[in-house]
């Protein structure tokens, strides 16, 4: 959770674009998370000082968390942030390890793409049915454009890293 191997920034245009895009997503997500944290603090103070917490702060925090977590996903993959057990294959030739990383990266890409597709449908369902949160009545579909975009970007990033890995493995 703390020590990660250093990731080398790519030099090719596609890689650079994906890395910067994922970084922008992380920055937006972090801003949302910071806002949620600040809102929660203000709500506590409001409750103590003026006996009036922020209306529906629970719901806003939940939606904000969902939005930021989705936005964090692509960058986490690019920074190799996902937990891997590398003990059993530490003896294996680097080529084999890179190959396996390529395959599992491709699998995560498929997961990202399928999730983006399903969440697109899920979001439009919410929009059509007019699902809103219980207290503030915020439309739930608001979160879905972020979720779909993040799933799609995750798929693209995985496609990129998987291609790179497989190229390295078979060179």
């Amino acid at each position: 959770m703390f020590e990660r191997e250093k990731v080398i920034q790519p030099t090719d245009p596609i890689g650079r674009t994906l890395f910067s895009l994922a970084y922008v997503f992380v920055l937006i997500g972090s801003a949302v998370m910071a806002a949620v944290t600040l809102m929660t603090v203000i709500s506590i103070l409001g409750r103590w000082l003026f006996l009036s917490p922020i209306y529906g702060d629970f719901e806003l925090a939940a939606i904000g968390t969902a939005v930021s977590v989705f936005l964090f996903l692509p960058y986490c993959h690019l920074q190799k942030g996902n937990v891997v057990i590398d003990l059993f294959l530490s003896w294996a030739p680097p080529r084999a390890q890179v190959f396996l990383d390529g395959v599992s990266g491709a699998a995560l890409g498929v997961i990202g793409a399928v999730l983006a597709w399903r969440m697109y449908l899920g979001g439009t369902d919410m929009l059509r049915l007019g699902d809103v949160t219980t207290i503030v009545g915020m439309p739930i579909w608001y979160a879905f454009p972020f979720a779909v975009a993040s799933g799609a970007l995750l798929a693209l990033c995985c496609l990129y890293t998987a291609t790179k890995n497989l190229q390295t493995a078979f060179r």
Partner: protein
Amino acid sequence: MSSFEIALTGIGALLILLALRVPVAVAMIVIGVGGYVSLAGWAPLLNYAKTSAYWRFANYDLSIIPMFLLMSQFAARAGLSRALFKAANTYLGHRRGGVAMAAVGGCAGFGAICGSSLATAATMAPVALPELRRFQYSDALATGALAAGGTLGILIPPSVVLVIYAMAVEANIVTMFQAALVPGILAALGYILTISIYVRFRPEAGPVGARSDRTQRRRALAETWPVITIFSVVIGGIYFGVFTPTEGAAAGAFGTLLFAVWKGGLRLQGFVECAVAAAISTAMIFLILLGADFFSVFLALSHMPADLVTFITDSGLSPMAVLILIVVIYLLLGMVMDSLAMILLTVPIFWPVIAGLDFGLSPADLKMWFGIIAVIVVEVGLITPPVGLNVFVINSAAKGVKMRETFVGVLPFLASDIVRVGLLIAFPAVSLALPRLLN
């Protein structure tokens, strides 16, 4: 194939994927999807995938995780670890092995405002190591004490792993945090006792450090006021129900940010680095949470946990024997696996088994008791070879120390952990007394 066999095949395949370097979350999703489809077909799964990720992530109780991770990042940059170590050192340093004891004490203090073991180990190492070197402590004792001390971060609340466990078994986060405090303090005292026994046999490993007088002690203790304040507000507030755990975490993140800016010289660039580091850990944890959802939906559909419970109750094994078996499985898994992933992977199988056995405790008590035991045993995995992550962190901070040496240094602390787990199993009151007292 019966559904029980499908579930067993799934678990076997999952272990193979994990060994093949597939990220834990990806392996859980792939196996969860594969198992689900073979039991119930594509249609319900595709429908489930429309909103399942959203509902998993849009959870007020889980907002606590990114906030605690932010809090840990800020705490690490607030220069508080130095003050904590110094204060502990003025009280303990003059004893034999005292500087190592102070390192453990500093870790315990830092664990009280930080929910992650690796962060605790990584921030305490650069502060304590030079001092340990100055007094010529043996490399094994110095690095072993720090690696073990780091694990206090996970046990002493706040703790990210406890939040994950509470979510997995639908336990109350507040009472989980209450239950963890006494075992956490016991852990710190146990490590200090371990050091004092160790230096009795190897006096050259831990020489006496500097003696401090009362004014120095008082002054050093006063320097730790930010930690005391944050811990009292956050954990005290959560314990006594002044605010929800998520609100406590938000207040803690905000408070540590203030100290990081004031005492640690944190500026915009550092703030962004903290936020991005917390974001990566958050994404990693939530992706595993999503994977655990798919995996446990598959397990539930196969009725495997329920069948396992019947099998075990029919086998006539005593509840204690089953618990000890589970502890042993955890210790073995901990040698190769990350603590969070382990909790999420095993709790859907082990918790129904434990819940189905009679330990003479109410369901709520059982959740707390088993949870604390599980978290301790899982945390032991952070310092066992071959993949003790804490050992790696400390070892990379201690230049020129062989990995072997650190692992040897950790052994006495492992023994102390095992004794403590035994204590907790034999006397549930150790973890259950405080929640009873407070509620």
